[in-house]
């Protein structure tokens, strides 16, 4: 077993990132070799994009409250990735890498502009925190993270969960997102009034996913609010694990020598 090559994931940690432990646990459960690295260490090392692509199959930007959201959730983290590390995530994806940004990690991807400059995020709840479970449904086949998923229940916890599109370019942006398969996950119910029910976006390759609810918090069935109706399933996996298993399958495929 020790000879089996396991794909490696870089899970970022650092100021304002909060969910690195459960994100790391989710990837480990799916089979990854997990490396938790502090963003400031990577900056001081001058860790380059090509090193990232050589070392890791997946980059994970966990949820948090990036620097207490002073300038907008995920903003400072986005600036550090763009300007201090100089990483272009689409280049990483084009070399076979996969990226996931969860919660404010998704906000970081939006602030970087991974999904276009016309999309942003703001509060749909009058600035109030919302901690509740929501149903989300995958759309289309583009996103590799969501492959084979049906409607799933996931926890949502943020005050800024409403994805918005520049009012002057709304229609063409929505058409673009839809046509390119980038609108990959939608809320059923949409209590946060997200534009077109957007709960997740992916890039055109399907390798970079930004997701607002938290799959890493539903790795075990006992996290679900209704699990006590079926205690015999207490040891079953949660529905969120499927995303990380998809990434594992995809990463393993990339690691296998071509036959």
């Amino acid at each position, binding site marked *: 077993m020790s000879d089996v090559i396991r794909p490696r994931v870089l899970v970022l*940690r*650092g*100021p*304002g990132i*909060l*969910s690195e432990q*459960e994100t790391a*646990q989710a990837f480990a*459960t799916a089979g990854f070799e997990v490396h938790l690295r*502090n963003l*400031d*260490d990577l900056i*001081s090392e001058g860790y380059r994009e090509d090193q990232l692509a050589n070392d890791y199959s997946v980059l994970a930007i966990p949820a948090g*409250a990036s*620097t*207490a959201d*002073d*300038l*907008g959730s995920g*903003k*400072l983290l986005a*600036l*550090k990735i763009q*300007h*201090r590390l100089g990483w272009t995530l689409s280049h990483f994806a084009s070399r076979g890498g996969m990226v996931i940004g969860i919660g404010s990690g998704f906000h970081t991807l939006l*602030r970087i502009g991974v999904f276009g*400059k016309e999309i*942003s995020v*703001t*509060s749909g709840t*009058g*600035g*109030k*925190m*919302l*901690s509740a*479970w*929501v*149903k989300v449904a995958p759309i289309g086949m583009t996103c590799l993270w969501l492959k084979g998923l049906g409607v799933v*229940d996931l*926890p949502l*916890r943020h*005050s800024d969960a409403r994805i*918005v599109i*520049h*009012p002057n370019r709304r229609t063409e942006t929505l058409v673009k997102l839809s046509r390119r398969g980038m609108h990959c996950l939608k809320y059923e*119910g949409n*209590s946060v009034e997200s534009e077109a029910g957007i709960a997740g976006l992916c890039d055109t390759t399907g390798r970079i996913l930004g997701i607002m609810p938290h799959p*890493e*918090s539903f790795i075990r069935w*006992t*996290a679900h*609010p*209704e699990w*006590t*109706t079926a*205690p*015999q399933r*207490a*040891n079953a996996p949660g529905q969120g694990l499927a995303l990380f298993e998809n990434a594992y399958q995809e990463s393993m495929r990339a690691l296998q020598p071509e036959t």
Partner: protein
Amino acid sequence: MFARIEVALKPEYSDPLSTPLLRRMEMTDPHLRKLVRWARSMTVYWLDVPLSREELIYSSQETLWDPVLHWLFTGNLIPSAAGKHGNVEDILETAPNRPGKFFALEKRFRLGVTDHAAKTLKDSFEAVLKRKLGPDARVATGSMLLLEGPQLTEDHLSRIAREYFSNELLESWTLLSEKEIAHTERFHPERVRREMPKTAPSRYHAPVDHLPLAGLTNFEALNFCKRKGILFAPEEFDAIRNYLKDAGENGESRDATDVELELISKVWREVPFRRLLRAEISPDEDARAVDPTLGNPLPEKISGLVEGTFKETLKEVPRAWVVSAFENGSTLLQYDDEDFISIEGEIESKTVASDSVFGTIMGYSEVYLRSICGARGARPILATDVIFSADLHGPVPRDQDHLHPRRVLDGVKQGISKAGFQLGVPTIGGALYLDAREGATPLVHFSALSLIPRTSGGIPSDVREVSEGDRLVILGSPTGKDGMIGSPIVQICDTTLLRSLGELVIEVRDLGWNRLFFPCGEGGLASLAAKVAREFGGLDLDLAGVPVKASGLRPMEVLGSETAERIVAIVAPERVEAVIGLAKRRGIIGAEIGEIKSHGRVRIFSGETLSADLETKFLRGHQPRSQETATRSAPTLPTRRSLEWGDPAKEGVETLLRIMSHPNVCSREWLIRQLDHEVQGASALKPLHTVTVSPELSHSGPNDGGGVKLKSSSNAGLLITTGLAPRAGATDSYLMGALAVDEAVRNALACGADYGKEEFLFALSYQFSCPAKDLEDSNLRGSLVRACVGASHAAVELQTPFVHGQQKTILVQASKLHFLVQAISRATKVAGIRSADFKTPGDGVYLLGPAQFSLIGALVSEVHGGAPEDASPPLPQWDTARRLYAWLGGAIGKEQKKLRSIHDVSDGGLLTAIAESCLARGMGVALSYPEGLDRTSEWEFLFGEGFHGFIATCSEIDAPLVEAELQQNEVPFIKLGSVTGSGVVQIRRGENPALVIETKVLRQAWKREGYWE
């Protein structure tokens, strides 16, 4: 270059500042709200940065401008970032009434208050420009509230500013007229330069003041201390005087320094409680008396309030899983073969009184700080908050310059929400208790549990050892005047820094670089110095080495400064550099400030000057031990004749609806949904059971506690539950203490805790608080003593020891003892965790327990204005309870696993518990009264409260096995009827329906929509 930048959300997006502000106004002052026809906020930045115009434009665009969301108003710096008007008119024109009458309120932090957003902006500029801005760069942040309303006067605007927009302790505000809003003069560099916060000038002080005690009277000496913000009781001053009279060279009397007095006062803090905790308490005959059916009388002498009560429980119920309790550092409990659990608590009212949001964040942060310093470093895994607040219907106490209780409670909620979210700790339990007798300032009791590996970095975590010569390294925010008594500066906790500190602690611990960590929060370096010296024999501390925010701080101020973002690590000399280096890489300032010594003294230096030199045994052991009495006054309770209560068959429905919508029973979903109980991904029992995922469709009901599944490698779950019985305190605080213990234990069992074997982890923690003046009143002191003894007796009866506790004097106007108990327990298999909801029609509904409920102290008596004259108080049956609890906890029998739901019978009694279990799934029940109950007994049965009651369900198939096992183990139970899918709660008296109500009506009452913010 100077610049002012205003950032406004475009009008199509909801404004996170003005929307809740208007809502708060509507809930608390509807008349004022009607005068405001429109409101909108903007964030304001004042910049003085060494950048060229091009650099400033570039970095501002990159950091502050999201073209989808924002307009920037910058004067002529970046006109293209604004809307079509290029100025604030872009926002004003969206007001519905044009031309209207506009005003603006602008606020900013006062000089000396830490502006965290400004620091973030500087960091962002540096990230974009890839260089440091240097120490001369200055940034300040604030906000502007634009208002429109033709009838708004200066008085109205002043009220809005003071009560809704700003906190004058932290922020200054100004009023701008319509003309000033429209004018661009405020963007002029010269104006910005004038408005930039100025550096506080250094004032000359003698570094250390000396107090010639020998030549002063106590009155003069106490006045000297008062001027310095140091508080002592007169007898304490006598103790200091006695100590110093022969402490000089050659055994002569010597002066005290202000550093020494600050040190002593911080160590001897909480004067009234300190006295009572050390006192020999002699309750008089009335205060000792306890109804023999309730418990044993109080002893004639109690040696120390905690020592003689709670700590005694551990002697009577010793448990091998208690690694340490009530000792230095955290209480440590063995969770499993790999990890310990530690417990921390904090009670906050003083800083909440200053600012409800920031004060609450401070309280939460203090618990977090203490938690991370547990053992050799810990990771907080869950938190609970119990809030006591004034009645929200009460009149606004304007004459006392207080905010409306709703406004303050909203601030507390925001504080918990922000702190929990930003620190990444799930809030999985707690309570909100509203009472007209509470003061204007809410009181928050915080608790946190942390996980600690039994060994980390190759060192066992339960070993507390240091060596002489080990160094003290301070880590965290630089020291300012924050937290000094009498200082106008109120600390705003930097939760991001605190969280980073928490991560650093884990890193250092796992590397094996530290011996221990000490929190430097409450009591500051003074308290820390005394603790370290007492535990390890002495230390030398050099205050000149402590990083400071500004020059000019006196040694006494450095010693007394309190903040929740500072810790001290004790490390071996060869590790100092590595720890400081790692901290620096994590953006945390670190410095070596002292050394462990074995000389039995606390010696504090300011560079070369010795500022304090006190013996450790004097600091921690020589406080005077007083003799205290405790008396008891007869309770005066309102009673109503039983006939006035009417027929429960006729009045039961209305009573039930009143109870379901009572502020202390109705839904807390508005609050729970704003607190993050999911972060860390481990919650296995949430504060609410929810049906049909998706917030707008979901229905929910209350659970009895919170639980987490901590590890993927283990099936075990950890549970935390709360018990409090404040209404019973009006009858007898002994009863209140006993009920609180029983409720905490009951709730844990309802959630699925293991119970009944010595090896099962099941521990209790207490928290109590009251105004300091109450401790001077022997009756009120008697109440407190009785509560502590009642709780301790109950704990021994239930074989669940107290292992931790917290007590504090608080700021409130009315006399009120707040007493609560929390149970920390374990479920071997998380599959055994249960929720309170009825799940399947046809399931049998059972009352488990002796069914001896009482109307005295019950919520129904409050609703009816008094208990019946013939009502008797609730009484425990501890033998029965132990059997029932052992069965529920899995120590005896095996059929308890077949129970599908359990809910504890507490506020509102049995019928309320049944109604709460029906709510989420819209279930109904068909139940029958037990036969032969008289009228009072029917009320008692339906709505009475007391000890040891549960409502449980199990399937029809399993019922015979469950019933047989209950009978076999002599556990009392009554089968009340069954769950139905009818959506109707129906109780029959004989053949006739006596009480019928639809579940959807109950749900409507319980939700009490529109009541909360």
